């Protein structure tokens, strides 16, 4: 009984040391899987991000394949992330959306699931790309700062909070139909 108690106390004391576990991305590997007819593409990647920072993923796309992109982020960010995708060959912004939108409808946000009326299911947003020629996409992920906490006490300055968590870019592909390859 005494031994059990010792272990429980030890576990309780040690627990805070591991509370930053979400800064590892292994939990997000479950999203990185094929979804027929799309195959998993090894360019999928995860990064540990912090609030207030902007991250870029440079993704080459090869002609002859259709690509599907999906994004996932740690709950700690509360979907407060903006996503922008620039086609490097044309320098055009081809996607510019928030993580979550008030409408929560298809094509309005990147992270929040939406209700699909066709099949009556909740779906995670995805974006399909067709490279007419090989090109490179610049994916810009802006993890928004957490709003600063106000204080009535004039001696206490505003306090910025930093959150750390994983953001994952899932890349899927399949051969383009009627591809010349």
């Amino acid at each position, binding site marked *: 009984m*005494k031994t059990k108690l010792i272990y429980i106390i030890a576990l309780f*004391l040690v627990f805070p040391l591991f509370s930053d576990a979400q800064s*590892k991305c292994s939990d997000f590997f479950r999203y990185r899987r094929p979804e027929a007819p799309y195959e998993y593409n*090894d360019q999928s990647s995860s990064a540990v991000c912090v609030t207030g920072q902007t991250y870029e*993923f440079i993704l080459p796309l090869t002609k002859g394949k259709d690509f599907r992109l999906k994004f996932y982020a740690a709950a700690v960010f509360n979907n407060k992330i903006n996503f922008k995708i620039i086609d490097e060959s044309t320098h055009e912004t081809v996607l510019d959306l928030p993580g979550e939108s008030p409408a929560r409808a298809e094509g309005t946000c990147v992270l929040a699931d939406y209700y699909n009326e066709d099949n009556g299911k909740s779906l995670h947003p995805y974006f399909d790309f067709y*490279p007419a020629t090989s090109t490179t*996409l610049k994916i810009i992920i802006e993890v928004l700062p957490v709003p600063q906490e106000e204080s009535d006490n004039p001696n206490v300055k505003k306090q910025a909070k930093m959150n750390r968590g994983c953001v994952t870019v899932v890349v899927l592909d399949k051969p383009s139909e009627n591809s010349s*390859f």
Partner: protein
Amino acid sequence: MKTSFKLITFIFAVSMLFLFTACGEDANNNNNEKDSLNQDVTEINEDNLITYLVPSPKDMFAFTKEGDLKYSANVLNAKDNADKYIDTKSQEIGFGIYSADLAYTAAFNQTNTAGEYLKVVESLSDKIGLGSVFTESLINRFKKIENKDSLLKVTNDTYYDIVKFLEDNDRNTSLSLISVGGWVESLYIVTNLQDKYQKDNNIIQLIADQKNIFENIVLSLQQREADPNVADLIQELQAVKTVYDGLEVIKIENPNVKNAKANQIIVGGSTKIVMTETQFNQLKKAMADVRNKLAGSDV
């Protein structure tokens, strides 16, 4: 009992130290918001803000197997070269090279040769600390392969497990060296199978389009060039870089987008990378030189 008491005292002391450190940071936050923000930002490695993505070898062979290229065992790296890799850099690059050979043999349904190359990959994986990926269950899956699709699936799954393992263990430099080995071997194979230059040929265009991927490889390596092994590798790739830097990117009009579906975002199409016959031959030579240097013992 004495030991247990010591254990609790130690854990308590460590926990208190952690707690006070955290509280100290909070106090700093209250005193000076700007300082606290700077402190947090300095924890971030600036290089990690940009991630350059590189496809795996299977991507290249997914295209070539559909074309007119014929399988040739002559382009594979000799299996006994693996014994010459004695340092970590050559073992990791060699691991990438043999992984590409494995993907190539799998794409062309060469089950017996694929089995032989799997053994080489497995043996190298032990040397570079990836042995745990090659579980008995994976080896058994390989033994039970009945058709081309399952052979491809097992080799693809294996590569994916390796990438996951390296990412999970923050071995980004290892991942870079393996990716470079895989890319060099894949392009070496394709430039050899495509013996001659042909204008408006899909494989030649695929080779030219590797310019985008090669740029990502170089930029990714440059993020880690403080490591002497990586700096050396950048030098090794210089001749390939010279050829790719020289390729012209031309503007095109009316790109062929008839295959695009309504829900797809069309990208590219306004430019095309062009490779001349001279540049193809230069690239072929540069690839052979760098591949033979990396695949031999001279690394």
